[in-house]
Structure formats: C-alpha cells, structure tokens
C-alpha cells in the first residue's frame, strides 16, 4: 500500500463506522450466550442452586450490556471503550476458572462428576472464543481510534 492509499484509508475512517471491532464484540456476546445456555444444564439439579449461580446470571447480564455498549462506542471510534472491551475479555478468561472449572472438578457421591468432559470443553471454548473476540475488538478498535485521532489532529493543525 503506497502513501496515498494509506492516507485515503485514514481519511475514509472519518466517514466509515468502525464495523469490524463492533461486530467482533457482538460475536463475543453471542459466544457468551452459547456459554450460559450450556452451563446451567445438569442432571444434578441441587448443585446449581447456589449464590455462585445467581452471581453468574447477573454477570452475564452485565457482560452483555457492557459489551453491547462497547460495540456501539467502538463503532464510533471512541477509544475509551477499547479498555472496557479488554477488561470484559480478561473477565471471560477468568470465568473459565470459576464456575466451569469448579463444576468439572466436583464429584458427588450419587452421580459422580457434576460436569462431564464434553460439556466442560464446550463451555470453555465458548468463553475462550468470547474472550478472544472481545480482546481482538479492543485491540483493533483501540488502534483504529488512535489512528483516527492522530489523523484528525493533523488535519486540524493543517487547517490552523
């Protein structure tokens, strides 16, 4: 890509929405949905009626709301939302070690292991992909926002 094309690409950002990271953030929500639809399935009904499950449900709601807001923010090149997305991505990784890992490690006398290997692999994959999407959205969105910010500053300097 030559210098002129690079300049046009930057200039285009003034008018085109930052769609790629925004869509990645939405994809992060989608995989989170896959995760929580799967995580509460269990033959051992009593196991899930704990405070942890209440907190998990609440966090899912907060995650979806925050992720959607960040998606909209990053679509409009608001760099601050990249940090929020990064935080959400890290949060998704941390979540792997809370509910799924605990359930996978727990064995009850009556039925044996609470979460089987297959279910565990699925929910971990969902959270990991969701985390990846959020982190990628944060990285791309943040980078593009800073590029646009610099470009706009240079335009302002020129016009001044």
């Amino acid at each position, binding site marked *: 890509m030559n210098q002129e*094309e690079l300049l*046009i*690409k930057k*200039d*285009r950002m*003034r*008018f*085109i929405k930052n769609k790629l990271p925004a869509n990645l953030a939405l994809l992060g929500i989608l995989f989170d949905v896959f995760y929580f639809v799967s995580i509460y399935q269990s033959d051992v009904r009593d196991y899930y009626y704990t405070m942890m499950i209440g907190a998990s449900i609440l966090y899912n709601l907060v995650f979806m709301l925050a992720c959607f807001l960040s998606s909209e923010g990053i679509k409009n090149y608001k760099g601050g939302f990249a940090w929020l997305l990064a935080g959400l991505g890290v949060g998704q990784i941390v979540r792997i070690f809370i509910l799924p890992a605990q359930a996978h490690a727990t064995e009850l006398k009556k039925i044996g292991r609470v979460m089987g290997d297959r279910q565990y692999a699925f929910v971990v994959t969902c959270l990991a992909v969701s985390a990846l999407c959020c982190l990628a959205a944060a990285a791309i969105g943040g980078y593009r926002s800073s590029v646009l910010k610099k470009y706009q500053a240079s335009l302002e300097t020129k016009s001044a």
Partner: protein
Amino acid sequence: MAQLRLEHVDKIYDNKVQAVFDFNLDVKDGELIVLVGPSGCGKSTTLRMIAGLEDISRGHLYLDGKNITQTPAKDRDMAMVFQNYALYGHMTVYENMAFSLTLRKEDPNVIHKKVLAAAEILDLTSQLNKKPSQLSGGQRQRVAMGRSIVRNPKVFLFDEPLSNLDAKLRGATRREILLLHKRLGATMLYVTHDQTEALTLADRIVCMSMGHVQQVGTPLELYDSPANLFVASFIGLPPMNFFDVTVAGAELRGKDFQVPLTEQEQKTLSAYQGKEITLGIRPENIVEGGSLSVKVFSNENLGMNTLVHGHLGAARITAKLRGWKSYRQNDVVNVSFQRKHFFDKQTTNAIGREQKA
C-alpha cells in the same frame, strides 16, 4: 456523455389507457431538456420509460445510437433523482452517496474519492457524517443528486426534484442544479410542472399535454412563439390573456372593444378576414396609454411592477404594468397591446408561426 433519441414512443397501460402518444425527441450531448406540463400529462411516465422503470409499449429508445428499448434499468447507465429523495434513513450522507458504488464492489478508496468530489461540488462536505433526518429539504435533495453524480452516469434524470421544497429553497436549489449542469456538462432530463423552473433551467423545453408533445423549443421560442393555445396559456406567469375577436380589416373586433393591427399583423391574418380567432396578449405586453379602456377591479403591487386585474369590455384582463400603481376599484386605465399572438379558433394552433420560423 451521451445522446438520447426517442422514436415514436407510446405508453399504453394494461387497462388500455394510453399515457404517452408518439413521443419523438433528440437530446443532444450535454443538453438539459425539461419536460413540462400539467399533472397527468405523461411527462413522468416518459421519464420513467427512459429510466427503464416503465416498459415502452411502442417505439424505440436509443442511447448513443444503441437501441436500449429492452435493456433493464440497471444496465442503462442512467441515474434518477426522485421528488421524495429516496434516501436511506439509517445511513449517513456519506454512506448514502457511496451505496451504489459499494453494491458494484468498487474499490473503497475509489469510492471515497468519488464521494468527496461529489460532496465538494454540492457543498456537502461538512454534512457527510449526518443522517438524512438531520438535513434540510434542500440538503437532502443535494444528497440525492450526489448519489447520482458519484455513479458518473451517461444521463441524469430528475423527476420533479424541487416539488417538496419551499419557494426560497426551490430557487436556490434550482440555481445549484443549473450550476451542476454547467460544471458536469452532463446530459440531463428534468421533469417539472413548474413553468418557471422550465424557463430558467432548460436548454430546450418539451411542453406536453394529455400525453401529446405540444411544442419542443428553447425557452424563448416557447415564450415568444407558442405553437398553440395550450403552450401559450401554460408558459408565462401571470398567464396570457385570451380574447375572442373577429378580424375586420385593419383591426380586431371583440365584444365592446377594438384592437388596431399593424401592417405586418394584417398580412399575417389575411386568410382570416371576417373570421373569428383567439387573440392572446401577455400581461407584460400591455402598456399604459392607448385606446383600450380597462376597468380596474383590483391591483397587486409586486414592487417593480403592478398586476392590474380588470375588464376589457366583458372580458377579464390582467396587465403587468411597470412601477408602483395604486388604482382603485372601477378606475379606468387606458392601455395598448404591444406583442400580439393569434390562434386559430378551430385548431387552436398559432397563426403565422410557420412564416416566422
């Protein structure tokens, strides 16, 4: 740019209603043609047939010598600007203008250049990030035009683009269209029912009525030498005054008034001696001083001119007199006619127009 030719084009709908009769027109490269006429005269139908949005029932359409009668609208390389703008409300101005090129999968950088160039022409650069709902009517219409410009089509088609704008904005946008035409040098067809738009914009005007072409000519030709009674009555504001008169030697005799004829006019009307004809006088061709007495019933001051409405004998008459006049009801003003137009009573065609042409 492009040349457009319509040959014996008819439009007959499925219910057998014929909207356009034997339409013939040669549009030169870079020409701005205005189709003008009252509502329902077939002007928009003609434009839609050219665009490919309506089938041509009979006849042929040629673009640069190539017959495109059966060519689908998308392959005709024409861009149409509609009365209601037809913008996408959820897209920004930039996205609206870029949309057609994005669909064609053009290079984004090329699209960007074209959109910025069009926005520059239309003075929309500062509006590119706004949604259509944030724009005024005139700006929306400019976006619609911009969407056409970026495609760089062979022919631009405008279907009453200024009808939704208020009078002031209409005037400003009209000037912009004219400027745009000069700048792009593009072939344009423009439909309107507003004769002021037609007169100010057109290189040539096609005046239509009831699906028939009444006259094709320059604005001056239509104004100064209307082909028939319809064109004479349609072009010009305020409209032309008409009187039923009889040719009697060196004068025209109406009910309770006589109008003297010049030698040239007598010659023109030589075949109509003793016959009844229609006399047409534009309000601006009536001047104060003369043998004709007009009994005033109202006057409208326009600043530089005054519109005087009154009666000449039993006939109603409107005169556009120079200056600020303050006539009262029943005042009598003596006037004379300068430029007269004569029309055959039966055919309604202009008399003596052939010799002039």
